[in-house]
């Protein structure tokens, strides 16, 4: 590709551009910046940039390095895997288009791992805490079983239109990375500790820490389902326990960064009211 190639409103596309990546060889190791140079192609996204870097495995200075590790799967922003911090903003790398990134910051793209989860390697982070929170709030419909016992409850289109957006949450973790109250929890395995003991200790630590906007929103999703509501009390109890909704500082960053535009703050508001009523009912034994 030569200078002057015109594409998608980006009249002067460069022949190549630089990608700065914050790398880390493993947990607990120091991180370091590394520069790569990538040939420009039309219609690139950050995934294709990382694919070119992996194939080349050579830095801008010509040094051979191990390919940069990153997480991805669907490449169409429905699986949530490829979340990272791109030019300072947490988002999915598949939907981060190079033309747009270069338009907002010419000549360079900066990639870093999410900040609230421990780094496994380079841009790969451990987001198991996020899934653990879904267990904590019992984010499921407690059906009797999987035999055929007829249709589910009727649902009005209005309710469906309220539930569907909440159900689009792909557990990407953007809302958590942007949240000032969601603090990184890192647990190191002790010498001689069994895998099962370590997992139990990690889960205990996760359960004490803030569940985050995504899990609060999922709790509201299942509390509004006719059968899901049978567990509503248990979900509200979880949201009132340590690491629950009271940790939310109402910064509203979550809703601003959600790639699916899920009304997270609306869910948090609903959860706040529901937990208050739940508390009052408990006091008065209703």
């Amino acid at each position: 590709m030569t200078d002057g190639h015109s594409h998608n409103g980006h009249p002067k596309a460069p022949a190549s551009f630089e990608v700065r990546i914050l790398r880390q060889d493993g947990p607990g190791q120091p991180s370091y910046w590394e520069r790569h140079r990538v040939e420009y192609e039309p219609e690139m996204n950050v995934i294709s940039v990382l694919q070119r870097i992996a194939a080349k495995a050579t830095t801008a200075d010509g040094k051979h390095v191990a390919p940069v590790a990153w997480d991805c799967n669907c490449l169409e922003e429905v699986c949530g895997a490829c979340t990272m911090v791109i030019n300072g903003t947490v988002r999915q790398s598949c939907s981060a288009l190079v033309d747009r990134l270069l338009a907002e910051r010419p000549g360079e793209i900066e990639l870093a791992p999410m900040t609230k989860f421990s780094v496994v390697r380079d841009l790969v982070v451990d987001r198991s805490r996020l899934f653990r929170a879904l267990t904590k709030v019992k984010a499921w419909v407690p059906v009797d079983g999987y035999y055929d016992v007829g249709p589910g409850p009727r649902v009005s289109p209005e309710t469906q239109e309220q539930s569907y957006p909440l159900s689009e949450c792909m557990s990407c973790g953007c809302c958590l990375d942007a949240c000032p109250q969601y603090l990184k929890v890192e647990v190191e395995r002790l010498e001689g500790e069994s895998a099962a003991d370590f997992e139990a200790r990690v889960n205990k630590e996760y359960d004490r820490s803030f569940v985050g906007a995504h899990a609060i929103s999922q709790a509201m999703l299942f509390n509004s389902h006719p059968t899901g509501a049978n567990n509503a009390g248990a979900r509200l109890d979880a949201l009132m326990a340590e690491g629950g909704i009271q940790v939310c500082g109402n910064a509203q960053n979550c809703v601003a960064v959600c790639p699916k535009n899920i009304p997270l703050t609306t869910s948090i508001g609903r959860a706040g009211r529901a937990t208050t009523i739940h508390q009052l009912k408990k006091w008065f034994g209703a």
Partner: protein
Amino acid sequence: MATKRILVVGGGLAGLAATMKLAELGIDVDLMSLVPVKRSHSVCAQGGINSVNDLTRQQGDDEWLHFDDTVYGGDFLQHQPPVKEMAYWGPKIIELMDRLGVTFNRTPEGMLDRRRFGGTLFKRTAFAGATTGQQLLYALDEQVRRWEAAGKVKKYEFWDFLGPILDDNGTCRGAVAQDLVTMEIRSFPADAVVVGSGGPGLIYGRSTMSMACTGSAASRCFQSGAKYGNGEFIQVHPTAIPGADKLRLMSESARGEGGRVWVPRTPHDPRDPVTIPEGERYYFLEERYPKYKNLVPRDIATREIFDICVNEGLSVEKDRQCVYLDLTHIPKKELDRKLGGILGIYEKFQGVDPRTTPMKIFPAVHYSMGGLWVDYERSATGGLTVGSPRNQITNIANLYAIGECDYQYHGANRLGANSLLSCIFSGLIVAPGLENLLKGAKQAAAELPSSLFDQSRKQHQSRHDALLRRSGGGENPYLIHQELGDVMTKWATVVRRNDQLKEALGKVSDLYSRAKKCSLSDTGTWTNQNVVFTKALLDMFPLALTILKGALQRDECRGAHFKPDFAFGSLTATEAGERRRQAEAWCDRFEANNVKWLKSTVAQWTGDEVEITYEVVDTSLIPPRPRLYGLVGADDIEKVWKQRSAAREAVQDGNGSTAPATLAAAH
């Protein structure tokens, strides 16, 4: 006795459905996946899931017709009993998913809303916006999380299945797998292994499939002796958005909701498409297929779009092949409600609003009808015997396959919105059979001598270590993968020719030799994606060769497998008598071809090449008939065909029997 356990490999719709049902039956499950199961490729399915429903029933629809549409759409290449069973379970599966809280779209009265999909005239498809696969997967993921919390399921996410462990009798006793983070390789004793690892899209380089769809798990079973059926049947989806890293699906639901496919009658017309008058637009699907219009089955839509661009030179753009998929005539509000998800994808990745500007789309590799060969037990009524351990079993004892990676349900071509159904169905049906298998087993795998498991682990460890030692100077696995994808996409997709397939076989064999000399740019022992990818790449070749060899040998047109040199073509005569004679000849040729080719391709890996045999298809429930969507002379052919069928039936009645067609040797 130690507790018996089942290992499920893959946490998409099929693997999760199996896991959840097994847990309900009281069986402990290890669930293994390359990615957190909630991020499985099933999330990419957009349009919906098919079943007969109360409304279509009153329009004359029933389960039998859904079954018929599925085998007709699949050009009769599937054994019919499993397909029949699936169609009859369809309504129950949708009710189950509804109970699990799937946010299906609703009618004003609160019932499930339905849309129409390709290959049928009924509105059978239930949907949740345009992210139905995601919504179904989440419902199953939630149930499995519930069982995980209850201690019945143990997840192994970010683990790579390296192969089944077979004992001296060739019975599967577990699997070896690798932790993608720590790179630890270990054995998992299991009383049965169920592989639900999805399709092999990455063999084609870029496709609509996700990055985890390498086909490696299926290939590793294949290389361990499992048979692979109908590999050459690869569905190319008519409408995808071309991209540098991936070809993103544009759901069939866009046409189901009224989307129209067209090109300007003037090649490469530079005008803004919305300003091009109706008279200067060529709605080629509507003109060529007045009955099904834009909703012809996928293989036909794909070939027509290909034909318009390649043969007729009517591509919208000069340098790149594409046609318009137009939704701009539909009110925005309706589009947002029914298709918001997929329109968002187009907007996000192309930077253009499809509500006001027609989309540019082109076909892309999408789904593998073929997959691991599996068995079934036929019931007295022609369905499946529920609870039989033979259902979904491969030719290796205790090794099962479900979902896209089995070959069982879609024959030569899959109908839209049938894949979500077959994935969930195969996952649910495998469970009661496994329950009975476990009941009959005398010893738990965990009690077998540890030498069996150690030995298998060591084999995989030494393969891994040998790869890590190969640093510097060799071939680059990523570039070999690109070359493989280019060869496969060019010669083994929409139109297939024997000379090209022969050339492709040579090229892919060469690439395989080169791939074996790949060297790694990362020789580390922590989260080494380079070595994991290289292993997956090596395992793509046995399947790629299976696809090519199967396609080369199959000298006919069937479903997605189209060889113009063997196409029957339309009737040309206008004079009634001659036309009748042509129709008779057409039917003769059709019958002769079926005698030769109405057979499943069954491949086995000999260690360095593919060996192919053929298996007779159980067509005892619905006799094969010509697939005539839109063919010139279809009415005449159909008339001849009906007369012949009636004559055959009369003979059968005269004999006092309804002798079913020859059954497959295995059944």
